[in-house]
């Protein structure tokens, strides 16, 4: 019996896509366009006004590399949190989420320090085109990180209410994880095309 029907079941199973997950992927696709526009604007103005500002005197590659490393490791912990939820290990999930939140806050701290340093050195949102596009782009990314941290903190406290279970909440955690990883990949692009390339 079972071969044909099991095959039918399998193919039926393969057609099922969780709505939340699909919606998140579509949202991330649209967010790609959003960040694509911000990054494009920054790079185009750098191309049009290459002599207007030299950011190498301001940028600290060591600090930015550290931020990148922190965000990559937070992505790793987020992947472990999703995996733990799939295995039904709530304690492990909580520990990993705490780690992600901690790393996210470190990243935000580094960004606040960087912005404060730049403003102190005279680069504000209205100083020149570099300042406008740079703060808009990295600031928008920072807001995304802050939203991600808030989301995960909520999820952490929700896990203590007893309403969270491995089967029903795994998709919710996975969706939060997708958002967090997306924030990471956006930073991977910004780190290279905005920071590193200036030093070549």
């Amino acid at each position, binding site marked *: 019996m079972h071969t044909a*029907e099991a095959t039918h079941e399998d193919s039926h199973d393969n057609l099922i896509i969780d709505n939340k997950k699909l919606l998140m992927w579509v949202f991330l696709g649209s967010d790609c366009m959003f960040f694509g526009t911000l990054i494009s604007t920054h790079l185009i103005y750098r191309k049009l006004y290459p002599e207007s500002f030299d950011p190498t005197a301001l940028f600290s590659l060591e600090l930015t590399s550290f931020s990148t490393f922190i965000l990559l490791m937070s992505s790793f912990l987020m992947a472990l949190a999703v995996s733990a939820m799939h295995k039904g290990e709530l304690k492990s999930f909580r520990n990993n989420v705490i780690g992600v939140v901690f790393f996210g806050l470190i990243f935000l701290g580094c960004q606040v320090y960087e912005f404060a340093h730049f403003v102190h050195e005279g680069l504000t949102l209205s100083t020149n085109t570099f300042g406008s596009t740079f703060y808009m782009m990295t600031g928008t990314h920072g807001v995304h990180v802050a939203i991600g941290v808030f989301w995960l903190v909520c999820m952490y406290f929700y896990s203590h209410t007893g309403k969270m279970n491995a089967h029903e909440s795994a998709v919710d955690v996975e969706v939060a994880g997708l958002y967090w990883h997306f924030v990471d990949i956006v930073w991977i692009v910004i780190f290279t095309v905005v920071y590193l390339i200036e030093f070549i």
Partner: protein
Amino acid sequence: MTDNDYQPVPLAPDSHKDSETEKYHTFVNLALGLAAITGIELVLVYLPFNKALIFTVLITLSLFKFVAVIAWFMHLIYDKLILTLAFGTGLSIATGTFIALGFLTSRGNVDMEAITGF
């Protein structure tokens, strides 16, 4: 046999956990790889090599990190094709816009006087 006779064969209880354990090792290796690549990128910009070469290597490494996080951390290689298409559509439009704007906004095509408000 009728549909009512069908009893789905339960998965072995450990099979899911085994697959998650396998993923764990992949995640650890990937995290180490990504950290190493970030270190290499940092060192590369200070090396006295040809600028075009360093630029190409940096973009390649960045692309690798980008794809690796999407594929493994975001589970896209384990998931259904439609999710790749949903994300790929947005990513393609973003990349296309970036390339098009890059070509359209060379100094020769822009009225510099009109936009030098700053």
